[in-house]
């Protein structure tokens, strides 16, 4: 059962990577990274149980936190003018 869940997570990771590589807009990529991070948390928790060493859960916690920080950071800096794609319409920035 655990192994089945692990395989499922692997499949989802593959899909997320494909989206991350294809991703037509920047936000698609951020979304893929976010999803990938969540899946990594699950994967590590599952791996810990399969190997019978649940100490691994500490790493899963770190992943959850770091993932959040990364996404927020990316979004915060994607607000700045340098990030605007040329194709997008330019809006006046208040930052």
């Amino acid at each position, binding site marked *: 059962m655990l192994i089945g869940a692990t395989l499922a997570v692997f499949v989802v*990771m*593959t899909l997320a*990577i494909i989206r*991350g*590589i294809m*991703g037509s807009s*920047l936000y698609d*990529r*951020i979304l*893929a*990274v976010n999803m*990938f*991070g969540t899946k*990594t948390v699950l*994967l*590590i928790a599952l*791996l810990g149980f399969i*190997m019978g060493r649940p*100490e*691994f859960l*500490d*790493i899963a*916690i*770190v*992943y959850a*936190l*770091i*993932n*959040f*920080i*990364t996404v*927020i*950071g*990316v979004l*915060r*800096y*994607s607000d*700045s003018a*340098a*990030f605007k794609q040329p194709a997008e319409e330019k809006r006046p920035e*208040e*930052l």
Partner: protein
Amino acid sequence: MTFLVGIAIAIVWMKDLIAVVMLAGIYGLLSASFFVAMDAVDVAFTEASVGAGISTLLMLVAITITGRSEQTTRHKPALAFFVVVITGGLLIYGTIDMPYVGAVDAPIQVHVAPRYINDSMQEVGVPNIVTSVLASYRGFDTFGEAVVIFTAGIGVLTLLPMVRSRKSDEAIESLNESMHERHMVVRIVAKILIPFILLFALYVQFHGDYGPGGGFQAGVIFAAAIILYAILFGLPAARRVINQSFIQFVAAFGVLLYGSVGLVSLLNGGNFLDYSVLSADPIAGQHLGILLIELGVGCTVTSVMVIIFFHFAGRKEGKQSMKEEETR
């Protein structure tokens, strides 16, 4: 594993630097999960917090300063490809002589590792062998690493001196107001989360003897919490919390703490960084020594990471405000 190669190839073809950085973030996460599968828990811990978190952020900030798109020119790609293929072929030819992955009788497994695994419990008394090797057997190496990190911090400090932001307090206030409106939800959640992150960093710091963790990882996580605060509440607010001179002092303090533990053991009649003489009981001495030097490493790593981030972000904001003044 094969994912890694796919992502790396994709990185080669991407022109948009932000996409490259996002993919590099996925790459970091992926390599960290590979480390978990290979039983390297501590390494996965570090790679998770460093490769996926801090380095992605730093590259992003650097890109916002330098611009996002790459020019299409490549230098002699055919020649480069040729060189790469030749080198790769030679390296693969070299791997044919390597022992298989996971072989029990490979030379690396029989030389010095059994001694660490069998004796570290009696000699150091710490269940996590990685910590005992890091802090005790190879303490001198780790001292060097701490100094390298400290030096890198100094390097960034000298390369990117602070640009004094000439914005008035009012401008900062109004900026804060507008940001508060826009990032309300995120800010509130972050306010709840940051204490937990800090607490978790302390747990990692002091639990490093028994589980995965230690000074390096804890330092990075601690710095990540501070960076999150700086991202969401603005650099000036973060500077008010973490004073510039204070953080520089902490960076130096960490290295000095590490060095002085070594000196004290020297004065007590042992070798440099031999903790057994720190206390009457050798095991207790080892515990004390490892605790202290992990603390030193944690201090240095935290403050250097924070310094690096502050200087990058401060550079960016300084440039922005200068541009705004030019346009006025």
